[in-house]
C-alpha cells in the first residue's frame, strides 16, 4: 500500500492509514503466487469480509502485504471499487 500511495497509483484508497481497519486497499493477487506473500492474520481475514468488490481467493489487503524479495515480478490487480 505504501508503494502505491507514494507513487500515485489510483484505485487503492487506504483510508485508515494502513492499520487494517477499513478494507479500502483491497487487491487481487494471482493465486499461484499467494504462497510467496506473508500469510494473512486473523484480523486481515476478518476485515476482508468488508471489501466493497467481490472477495476472491486471491483477495488481500495491500496494507498487510510486506514487500520482500519473494515478491519479485508480482502483478497486482485492483478491484473496480474500494467503497
Amino acid at each position, binding site marked *: 500500500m*505504501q508503494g502505491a500511495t507514494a507513487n500515485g497509483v489510483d484505485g487503492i484508497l487506504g*483510508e*485508515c492509514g494502513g492499520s487494517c481497519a477499513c478494507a479500502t486497499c483491497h487487491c487481487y493477487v494471482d493465486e499461484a503466487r499467494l504462497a510467496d506473500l506473508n500469510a494473512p*492474520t*486473523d484480523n486481515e481475514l476478518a476485515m476482508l469480509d*468488508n471489501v466493497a468488490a467481490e472477495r476472491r481467493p486471491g483477495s488481500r489487503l495491500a496494507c498487510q502485504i510486506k514487500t520482500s524479495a519473494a515478491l519479485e515480478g508480482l502483478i497486482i490487480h485492483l478491484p473496480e471499487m474500494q467503497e
Partner: protein
Amino acid sequence: MFSFDPYAPAVDANPFPFYKTLRDEHPCFWSPEADMWILSRYADIVSAGQDAQTYSSASGNLMTELPGRAGATLGTTDAPRHDRLRGLIQHAFMKRNLESLSEPIRDIAREVAESLRGKKQFDFINEFSSKFTVRVLFAALGLPTGAEATVPESTVRDKAVMMVQSDPVSRTKGPEHIAAYNWMQDYAAGVIAERRANPRNDLISHFSMAEIDGDKLDEREVLLTTTTLIMAGIESMGGFMAMFALNMADFADARRQCVVNPALLADAVEESLRFNTSAQRFRRRLMKDVTLHGQTMKTGDFVCLAYGSGNRDERQYPNPDAYDITRKPRGHLGFGGGVHACLGTAIARLSVKIAFEEFHKVIPEYKRVQEQLPWMPSSTFRSPLVLELAVA
C-alpha cells in the same frame, strides 16, 4: 548550535522551520531536551511506523507519557496483544458503521453554529469547537448527557484538554495534568460500570462486552481505552478543528471556494491534516540498534516520529509549505500511519466536514483577530488555546 526542544514555546508556536533544519541537516538527530532521537523525514517516519517490532509502542507513545498508561491502551501496546485489542473494537469505528451518527452530528453542528448567529467576534474554541466535540463524543461513545449527566460537559472538556498538556519548565506532567488524568479515569470507570449493568447499543457498552473466541478486554484495558478515546475525541479532534479553522481564516481564497462548494471541504480537511495536523509528534522505543543517516540509535532509546515534519517533507510533497486544497495529499501522516494509525480517522473526517458545512452556513466570512496565538504547551500536540475570529 542547533537544538530541538519539543517543550520550547517557540516550537509550540511554529515547529516548521525547526523541522526543515532537522530534515535537511540532521535527519536522525539526538535531542537532549527531549531525551530521544528525532526522525523528521517522511520516508523514515513511515518505515518506522510500519516496523512495529523494532519501533515499539509498549513504553508509551506520547512524547511525555502519563503515568501507568503505557501498556494499557491500544496506542501503547505491541503485537500480539495490540492486534487482538484493536480487532475487538475497530469495526465500530469504520466509516460504513458510522452512518447512523451523521444525523446526530449534523444536529449538534447546526445547534452550536446557530448560537453564533449575530456575533461580531468570538473565540472559535470556546464558542464552537469545544461544545461540538464534547457533544459528538458523548453521542458516539454513549456518555450520559442531559438529565442523566453525571458532570457538566464543560468539566469533561476541561479535563481532556488539561491531561494532554505538560509543564514547559519541568518538561514533565505537572500535578494538575496528572489530576486531570486521574479525574478522567474515575469518570470513565463510573460510566463503564453503569453500561456493564445496563448495556446499550453504544461504543462503551461494545468495548465492555466485546469478545472474540472467549477473549475479552480486561477491566484496565476497557478503562484506559475509554479514557484515551475521550481524550482523543475531545482534545485531538478539537485541536484539529481549531487548526482547520485557522487555515480557513487565514487562507480566504480556499475558504471561499469551500463556502461556494462545500464538496471541497473534504479535500481541504485532508490538506490541513497534512499542513498542520494537531498530532505533531509521537514516540516509540527501539527494540534493537538501528543505524540511520550515519547515526546509531541504541536499543532502549526513545525515537520521536515527527508526523508534522514528515508532512512538510518536499521529498514526498512538492512545494510542501503551500496550502493547496487541490493537492489531495495521499499517505499523509496527519492521522499517523501503520498499525497504530488513528482509530478515529473516519469519525474525525465525517465530523469536521459536517461541522464546517454548518458553520459556514452561519459564518461564511471571517478572519483571525490575534496576530500571535497562545499555543497549548504540549510536546505531542499543537493547537491554539484561544482562536478569536472576527465576522466580516
